[in-house]
């Protein structure tokens, strides 16, 4: 009996000790700073030593599912083959990415590399706190759009592209031609006439999926176009973000939403927009069952990659609130930020050095033509839809461009997918809100969000 007691006591002790041992990491932050630095140096030395010895080095990263491009995968594969550097990217569903990224960074458990859309990244996390500045790297001198990764005068990332292009309506050229639509519409009435013609031919003029980021393109593009100039957009954003003005103080905002809602009322939009997926919509567009979808040039490139047989292109649609015919472009691009806590900084710097060479950089654009951010890298523009550079250059050269509205008010980014974009689908589905009501409801979200944030002008 006595033995049993002892055995029980010992078992309890062993299990408790093992639990304490498991939680050992929690005690790590108490290491003295000097010791910590010495430890970091040793780890960096080890990483550097591994590199020079050609030993296998493993890096970790996180990437959104929709951004896990084949070009990036090819770059990672070649790195493993030629340099013995392996990057284990965790592919995370888009809708969970922001939270995971913020939580991991804040708890100092993030991987070495964070793939995200620049400069949107800086709206979610403070780069000075979490990322390594890369200003001293040799490849920085070859960067075409350094402003993408700039924050308070320092650069916090490696961007593959200089720009994501511009927004517009992607359309099936074969469908237009089959219905004798040879000229693109230049006014809103002409646009409605095109839609009526398509509708009469039993073709859905515009398709919208349940994925809220698609219909919002109409608004983020439209709101900037309605204001018309970069200065007007910046002034608007400044007032909205400091509580000096409300969304409904600018009737243009509601007008944009109202014009979008008109498309539903006129029967130009697919009836199953609340349930049909984006992938299914793309299939319908490629097959000619529908004629147009909201999109952007990078989306067009992706669709062309998936449906090489489809004859697709893009145009800047005429709208009633933009008499200057302005183009909304995307001053954003996919890139990689380096976690400040990484123990493999030397290896990462070597990776970026390699990736900024044409040997690696070209891989990124082989299946997805684009605008490279690094001088000397071939963006495979000859494979690009010819309308993209044509339209881009035309508007750019005339200065008729504004960034999409999401860029100007990117401080509100967490609200977009959770509230505003949902309203853009809820309003036509239920018919319970007009443009002003949508903006009013969003204003309430903004007020609450900014108060929570402790933003200037709200407290």
């Amino acid at each position, binding site marked *: 009996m006595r033995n*049993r*007691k002892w055995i*029980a*006591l010992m*078992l*309890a002790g062993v*299990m*408790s000790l093992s*639990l304490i041992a498991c*939680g050992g990491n929690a005690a790590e932050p108490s290491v003295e700073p000097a010791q910590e630095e010495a430890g970091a140096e040793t780890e960096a030395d080890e990483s550097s030593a591994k590199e020079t010895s050609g030993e296998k080095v493993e890096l970790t990263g996180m990437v959104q599912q929709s951004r896990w491009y084949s070009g990036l995968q090819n770059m990672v594969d070649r790195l493993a083959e030629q340099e013995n550097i392996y990057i284990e990217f965790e592919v995370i569903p888009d809708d969970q990415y*922001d*939270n995971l990224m*913020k939580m991991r960074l*804040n708890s100092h458990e993030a991987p070495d590399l964070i793939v995200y859309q620049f400069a949107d990244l800086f709206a979610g996390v403070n780069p000075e706190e979490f990322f390594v500045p890369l200003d001293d790297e040799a490849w920085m001198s070859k960067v075409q759009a350094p402003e993408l990764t700039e924050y308070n005068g320092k650069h916090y990332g490696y961007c593959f592209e200089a720009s994501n292009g511009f927004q517009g309506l992607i359309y099936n050229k074969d469908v237009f031609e089959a219905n004798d639509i040879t000229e693109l519409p230049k006014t809103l009435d002409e646009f409605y006439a095109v839609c009526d013609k398509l509708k009469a031919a039993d073709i859905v003029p515009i398709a919208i999926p*349940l994925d809220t980021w698609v219909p919002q393109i109409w608004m983020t593009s439209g709101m900037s176009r309605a204001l018309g100039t970069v200065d007007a957009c910046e002034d608007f954003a400044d007032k909205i973000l400091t509580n000096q003005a409300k969304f409904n103080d600018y009737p243009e905002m509601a007008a944009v939403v109202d014009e979008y809602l008109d498309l539903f009322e006129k029967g130009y939009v697919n*009836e*199953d927009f*609340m*349930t*049909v997926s984006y992938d299914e919509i793309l299939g319908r567009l490629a097959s000619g069952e529908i004629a147009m979808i909201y999109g952007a040039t990078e989306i067009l490139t992706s669709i062309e990659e998936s449906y090489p047989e489809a004859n697709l292109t893009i145009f800047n649609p005429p709208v009633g609130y933009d008499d200057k015919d302005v183009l909304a472009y995307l001053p954003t691009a996919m890139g990689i930020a380096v976690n400040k806590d990484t123990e493999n900084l030397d290896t990462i710097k070597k990776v970026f050095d390699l990736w900024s060479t044409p040997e690696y950089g070209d891989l990124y654009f082989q299946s997805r033509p684009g605008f490279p951010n690094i001088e000397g890298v071939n963006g495979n523009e000859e494979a690009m839809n010819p309308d993209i550079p044509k339209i881009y250059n035309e508007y750019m050269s005339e200065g008729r461009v504004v960034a999409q509205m999401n860029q100007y008010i990117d401080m509100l980014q*967490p*609200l977009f*997918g*959770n509230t505003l974009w*949902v*309203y853009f*689908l*809820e309003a036509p*589905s*239920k018919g319970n809100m007009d443009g002003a009501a949508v903006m009013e409801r969003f204003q309430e979200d903004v007020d*609450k*969000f900014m108060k*929570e*944030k*402790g933003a200037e002008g709200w407290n």
Partner: protein
Amino acid sequence: MKRKKKSIYPLYALIPALVIYTIFSVVPIAISLLLSFTDWNMNRLFTPVFTGLANYAELLQDPVFLRSIGNTFLFAFATTILKTGIGFILALALVKKVAARGILRTIYYAPCVISITVVGVLFKSILANRGLLNNVLSGIGLEGLTRDWLGSYGTAIGSVIFVEVWMWAGFNMFIFISGLQAISADYYESATLDGASAYDKFRHITLPLIVPSMTVVVTLSIAGGLKVFDIIYVITNGGPGFDTQVLATYTYQSFSLGFLGESTAGSVILAVIVVIISFAMNRYFTKREVEM
């Protein structure tokens, strides 16, 4: 002389379990409760300030939150009634020696072992506007019944309730079958000798003696229904709009916005509701249990 009652195991053996339970359950619950009274958010991750009941007041003024409470109750009670009722009927049918009993039990049980993500993809495509269900309805001449099942509130919430019942009725069936098999055949034989009808036997033997199984099924179902998240998330994601939001998806959304204090307050409200209702149901059924 009063004999000292001996326990089989010494009390020390409880220590590991208590340590684990304390670290992974009691401490997080206590911390959550405290944080729900603060303005904890992504920007003040390590410096939350006490704000009293502000988070709770904010939640109770939010129409989407109130709607999500209504949806949670609707989902929990509807699925509990249906899962329990259908599970019980299936058990009564398949506890008997009927042909292909084993195969049928397996078929009814199978849905609950399928991954929820797979179930979500499966039913989203079945219920889609151009999905299997509408195609079948059109094929048999019932075009009038076709609709975008997940596109409006009534059919969307009805669909997720249906899927939940489809998944778990078979699981409940097994609990009931084990309960039914534990009832001694002697009771039924005596009742037959006394001239009791089939209904009398069901009413006065089966029902009272199945109450322990009913307690388990109802408690599990109601608690599972009240904290539902996965099935809503994968099939409707709280939509259309915010129509099928439940407490757990609302809390998740609040968390996504970085409102950690508010999100924690939502979790506390959910936990309190689950505890109170599960406890009340459990107590109600336990009182009606009969010693076999």
